[in-house]
């Protein structure tokens, strides 16, 4: 399983990439896509939606089950990856890159102290 070094992770198998201007990009991990199996639908939020921390923002349906993605921080959805709505299989084939899900402009400081680093997440999924 791939666990890129430059990302942060949650125990719910989401990855978080810190960008400039207090923005973050999120997606699900290689482990998560592998557990879900073939992804067949991705339900993305509307751009400009205000979200609270731990709000359900993305639903990912596979042939096996439904995966839920929660906002890791409060903020506003500033972009979504329309490519995965068209081609849900990108979540399987490229979970950290072409299969990203949403971009959030975080309200206030981005506090990553509750998140896992690559090493910590790698241990979790071993």
């Amino acid at each position: 399983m791939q666990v890129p070094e430059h990302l942060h992770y949650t125990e719910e198998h989401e990855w978080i990439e810190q960008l400039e201007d207090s923005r973050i990009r999120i997606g699900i991990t290689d482990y998560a896509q592998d557990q879900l199996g073939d992804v067949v639908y991705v339900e993305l939020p509307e751009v400009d939606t205000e979200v609270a921390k731990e709000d359900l923002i993305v639903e990912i349906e596979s042939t096996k089950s439904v995966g839920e993605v929660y906002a890791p921080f409060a903020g506003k959805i500033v972009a979504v990856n329309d490519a995965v709505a068209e081609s849900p299989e990108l979540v399987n084939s490229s979970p950290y890159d072409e299969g990203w899900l949403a971009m959030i402009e975080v309200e206030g400081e981005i506090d990553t102290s509750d998140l896992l680093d690559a090493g910590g997440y790698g241990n979790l999924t071993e």
Partner: protein
Amino acid sequence: MNRSPLHQTHESLGARFVDFGGWEMPVQYDSVLAEHKAVRTSSGFFDVTHLGRFELSGTGAVSALRHLLCNDIDRIEPGRCQYTMILNENGGIIDDMIVWWWDSETFWVLPNAANQDRVMAMFADQPGCDVQDLQMRTVMIALQGPQAPDVFESVIGAKPGRFRTATAEYEGGVLSMAGTGYTGEAGGEICTDPDTGRRLLQALVREGVTPCGLGARDTLRLESGLTLWGNDIDETTTPLEAGLGFAVSLDHDFIGRDRLVAQSEHGVERKLTGLVLSGRGIPRSGYDVRSDDGGVGTVTSGNLSPILETGVGLAYISPPTDLGTGVEVEVRGRWVRGTVEDPPFHKERG
């Protein structure tokens, strides 16, 4: 947990496993969608060793089949197979199964894995019947797809006709075969000893047949509208409610007949109905359904149809509704539009 004697072969093919009715069986090798499409366009094989199977023989065998099962074995003859059900007194489906008729007093009965012991015991209690468990000493392989008949010819040198039995010698072993399956495609199911089964599986791999797991088996059967016992049918549903009237013969006496006679005279209060969604979303078991003509119900099976690339499902709707009626399925708080359609869902209609 039981394991198929073919387990190691699956491991070497990269299978992932799932617990299914006390059996650790392959759920997928590469991708459920890829395996599904292989079976719709070329051919795939499934290890279905977990399926129930026993031999029924004796002077009382035919009488027992006619008494316990709602389809009439007298509709067929030796060398043929029949889809049928065993009902309770109230017409509820204790199990559905295929019967293979070998010769006058010898049958194979193939119940669902979970019901093997119960169904075998019910037959054993009938006068003049001997039953012999086949499940633990044989393997069973399903070979399915539009190219499956060609694979039967090229690898085995024989193929069973549709709903017919056949036997063949294969590398020192004997294959017992029937032209049956659970995918809606051509092909058949093969029962043999574990060593012969291993050699056959390797030959199928060399022939380029796609290994398929229970994940694809489920999406294939659903897309074809084939019911799954425990999901779509059980002891609280009757064959007529489930749309399985083709496998009911009211012309003979059998357990549960009275209820079916009443239902065929007065109609059923609910009916298992095919749904094809036009909106985005996948119906899942337990989701609520409402039809534009006022019917309500619950989804019993649902998934993506990999061929239509849209959500499809089966749901009991009460009162029964007509083909083409608009419906909505509640997918986690959102009502998604769809239409009542007759499976198989993936076949072109015109």
